[in-house]
């Protein structure tokens, strides 16, 4: 699921080029387009909810600062995930480990079926706890594939590996998670 842009909207490549030419609205458009998925990715990767906004902002800061390093092999969003993942890893190192917070710490949407919602929330909590135990590469591949819906080509380009290797990492991650959640 890499086709994220409709033909009517400017592509990320066009927005990045516009920003490089001084169009700050292009930066706003890129933030609006990708901040949500980046936040979700960081949360799923183990960031505490209270840190997600700051991490997202730091991610964009580093991205805009280092735009010359984005070669376009992977999508702009994948590149943001990589930057965010690196920031999160540095954050974990600083704190000597990840503090997992329960889903009770965040606002859950109102729902007509609170029991189903609670069961889903519990399933999410367990998945998130399990994802946090995965090796970094497996975690990134799993989240990009299952949470973000990226295909293996996209994931491979972002992580500097082959689609086949990315697929193997994904299946390893799934196997481990199924054992953990059993």
């Amino acid at each position, binding site marked *: 699921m890499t086709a994220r842009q409709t033909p009517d909207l400017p592509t990320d490549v066009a927005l990045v080029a516009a920003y490089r030419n001084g169009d*700050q609205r292009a930066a706003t458009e890129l933030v609006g387009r990708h901040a949500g998925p980046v936040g979700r990715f*960081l949360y799923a990767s183990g960031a505490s909810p209270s840190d997600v*906004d700051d991490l997202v902002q730091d991610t964009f800061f580093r991205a*805009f600062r280092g735009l010359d390093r984005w070669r376009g092999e992977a999508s702009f969003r994948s590149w943001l995930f990589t930057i965010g993942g690196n920031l999160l890893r540095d954050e974990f190192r600083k704190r000597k480990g990840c503090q997992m917070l329960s889903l009770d710490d*965040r606002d859950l949407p109102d729902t007509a079926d609170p029991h189903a919602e609670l069961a889903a929330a519990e*399933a*999410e909590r367990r*998945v998130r706890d399990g994802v946090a135990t995965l090796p970094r590469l497996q975690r990134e591949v799993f989240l990009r594939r*299952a949470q973000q819906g990226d295909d293996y080509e996209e994931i491979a380009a972002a992580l500097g590996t082959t689609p086949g290797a990315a697929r193997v990492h994904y299946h390893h991650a*799934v196997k481990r998670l199924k054992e953990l959640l059993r």
Partner: protein
Amino acid sequence: MTSCTQLSDRMPDVAHGASRWTETEERHLAACADCRAEWELVTAACRLGAPFRPPADPALMASLVLERLAHERRRARFRVRLWPAAGLAAAAAVILAVWTGVGVRPGGDGARGTAPRVATAPPDAPRAELPLPELDDLPAEALDSILQALDSPGARADTYELPGLGDPGDRELERALTGLEG
């Protein structure tokens, strides 16, 4: 490739709505507990962090990011400019030290050099005016008499004015000027 692996590869796409199960796949899913467990895992991963929404005001986040970038660039430019300035200041300090150091008079008392004397007017001295050589050459008595003549109420203003053009010499001058101007 087993049916389970085929299903596993397609799960993220179906969970994200990019694809749909075929009837065969649905039948397999209904019959295979392992695939159902994986399907629950993938759908939970797909929802992970769903309550996080893009920033309500992307323009604000973008402006914060861009302001940080601008601030960092200003600091970097300042650092670049600071080094030559610091070098110049150090060179100036060295020159000043050498200059004051060689200020020891050969026949002096051997003390450290004193700062070179700069001619300064005494505090109560009249403000410096452009020197008029003619007046500078006059003795004090002559200057006093000129001042008295100027201050005297009976002094005629035209005494020090250029004679009018009514003088014959001026008429010649005027003719010469007219001739020059054509």
